[in-house]
């Protein structure tokens, strides 16, 4: 497989995954804005912006935070490199360059998403359209993932899923980092509705609210939520699930065993940490530190993949 092809495939899935994260984040902000608080309504748009890594870009363009602007910036803005529009359009451009590494189904899925978002972008929309946009985006990403099933199980397939899980690991970790303080044991003592809402934001943004209920009996506690997000292998967005999948797809690559073992050695400590650690020990070590360390390991991994396979 051409190095350029592998690189493009890897980025296509990263962009598609990112598009989904962005859409889910917007949905969280939207739901929160419908709930009353003592002064008016909840306003989570600033944490949405920071979880999306879009705060800096947003404030060079706008002075104040409001739903219309955040929505436009995160969904449609071409100047925001991580907007859903930017992600889908970059994924489509990359797909155009590697059409031969794709089945027609996979190409059609991405091309169709692109054509549709072009149309959506040019339409006037109202506040109430936001959930539809989110739903649409998730559908598109699912269509892409589903169509990837039709691919030959060669290295290209595994580069696609390496991209998917590296992006997801990064996104989940960053989201945790924005909200880590609501999972600290002290938060339990504060109690009250606000904190429950904050937990729900976390669960919903990972589309795991119902899954969590199925996975854990009894009360919702911060420890259970932290366990769910970090160590639970059944949760398809947990850090542990992502790492396991990264290791799996890395080991499936048929090319260059030397490069793969080199990459794995850099990943070992994170892999072990999700296998052997307990939530208690992670919290004792420092949740924030743990997550920060995780993000930097993922970024190091991304660098190694680029250098070993794509250069």
């Amino acid at each position, binding site marked *: *497989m051409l190095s350029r092809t*592998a690189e493009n495939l890897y980025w296509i899935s990263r962009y598609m995954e990112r598009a989904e994260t962005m859409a889910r984040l917007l949905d969280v902000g939207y739901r929160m804005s419908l709930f009353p608080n003592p002064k008016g309504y909840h306003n989570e748009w600033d944490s949405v912006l920071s979880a999306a890594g879009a705060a800096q870009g947003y404030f060079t363009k706008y002075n104040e935070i409001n739903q219309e602007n955040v929505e436009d910036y995160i969904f449609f803005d071409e100047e925001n490199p991580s907007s859903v529009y930017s992600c889908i359009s970059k994924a489509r451009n990359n797909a155009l360059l590697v059409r031969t590494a794709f089945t027609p189904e996979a190409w059609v899925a991405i091309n169709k998403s692109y054509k549709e978002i072009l149309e959506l972008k040019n339409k006037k929309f109202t506040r109430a359209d936001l959930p539809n946009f989110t739903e649409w985006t998730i559908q598109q990403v699912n269509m892409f993932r589903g169509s990837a099933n039709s691919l030959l199980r060669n*290295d290209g397939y595994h580069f696609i899923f390496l991209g998917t899980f590296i992006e997801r690991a990064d996104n989940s970790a960053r989201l945790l980092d924005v909200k880590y303080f609501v999972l600290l044991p002290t938060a339990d003592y504060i109690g009250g509705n606000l904190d429950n809402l904050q937990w729900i934001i976390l669960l919903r943004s990972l589309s795991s609210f119902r899954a969590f209920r199925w996975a854990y009996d009894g009360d919702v506690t911060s420890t259970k939520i932290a366990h769910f997000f970090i160590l639970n292998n059944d949760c398809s967005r947990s850090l542990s699930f992502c790492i396991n999948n990264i290791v799996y797809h890395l080991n499936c690559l048929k090319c260059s065993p030397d490069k793969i073992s080199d990459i794995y050695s850099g990943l070992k400590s994170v892999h072990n940490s999700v296998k052997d650690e307990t939530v208690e020990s992670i919290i004792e070590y420092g949740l924030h530190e743990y997550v920060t360390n995780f993000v930097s390991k993922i970024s190091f991994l991304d660098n190694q993949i680029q250098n070993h396979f794509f250069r």
Partner: protein
Amino acid sequence: MFDEMYSDDAQIRKHYLQVNSWLRTMSSTVISQKNFEAESHFKRIGITFSVKDDDMTERIIPFDLIPRILTNNEWVKIEKGVLQRAKALNSFLHDIYNSGEIFKAGIVPKEIVYKKSSYDQSMINFSPPRKIYSPIIGVDLVRTGKDEFYVLEDNCRTPSGVSYMLENREIMMKMFPDLFHTNRVLRVDDYPTRLLQTLMSLAPKKCDSSIPTVVLLTPGHLNSAYYEHTFLSDQMGIEMVESQDLFVENDLLYMKTVDGPKKIDVVYRRIDDEFLDPLCYNPDSVIGVPGITQVYKTGGVNICSAPGAGIADDKAIYIFVPEMIKFYLGETPILDNVETWRCERDDELTYVLENIEKLVVKEVDGSGGYGMLIGPKSTKDQISEFSTKLKSNPRGYIAQPTLDLSSSPTLIDNEVSGRRVDLRPFCLVGEKVQLCPGGLTRVALNKGSYVVNSSQGGGVKDTWVLAD
């Protein structure tokens, strides 16, 4: 005007009977719906092209639902004629880059050949594998009568359009499967396999594997035929590479893969000679591969088509093709050329200027339907403007009679109406010389128009060759 569906006494020709009754069953609602279906399909798969002065928009070529049908008898003649031409053109190329027998015989004046920029001096005394320069030749044919097919031009470099031949058939089979139960249409879907076999049969002498590595070299996604590049690579199961994927080392050509360098044996290039190698041709080329010609000349890789193959489809060389067939093959040409006047000859220029309103005048180096004058369709001003150009640069033009292109039933605003068509079959020249039974039928959608080019109001049709 010859009508493909109706005979002179207004009877439906036998081979169109089934299609005609099928047409009668379709209401205009169904036609609209099927048109929409086809259009959405082409958009989804991204079979688009960009127009010269408007290169940012992706358009699709209008697709007409009514197939263009050729009987087996008609096809046999076309096939023989095209194969004959393809062999002669390759013999000609080998000859003019080697011993030059055709010059010595006084059939083609060597000045004409040597002066052409498409004549590549660096190819002199070089012989590519199997002496084949042009493995894929698209021959543009027009029809003016029951048995009258003429060759309008040959395309010996990298003819495009074959993806339409294949995709048009796919969409027809998908939308109207019944038609293929009632008509025995010869298959075209094995073209990519045949193309791959052809390219593999042209491996260079340094290739040590029984399965040569073939790649398709594309200039990139901004090229108007990019869809076709991806389509053909995909169908053949070969890598589609760009210049940045390739490098030369020790007189061999490699591509960069996740597994390290991989040697390449045959390059099916879809970029022009000029951009092939910045060390040998245009030094500013960023889409070519530095050093690839050196690898080629030392037998490390084969480049298809060969550099310099374009001289064979030059409009000034075209007029000699019937002579070439006699000279190299000792055969009588099966397909005729269109009568052509060379404006560089004084007497012929005089004739052209006197009869310009009846003629088609073309730039020798033009293509795509640009830079031409169709006398009967032009205003006085356009004619006088073109006459001035002709006089100042007679060498740059040829003229041909305005051919009465045959007309084929076409859906215009959901009604059947006759529109003029041409035909481009694709001939493969490798270990075998073969023609896929079908081709690209282009149709001039504007009423009365002769211009079938997609950039100027042309559409395409599925082309059927019936089993006998």
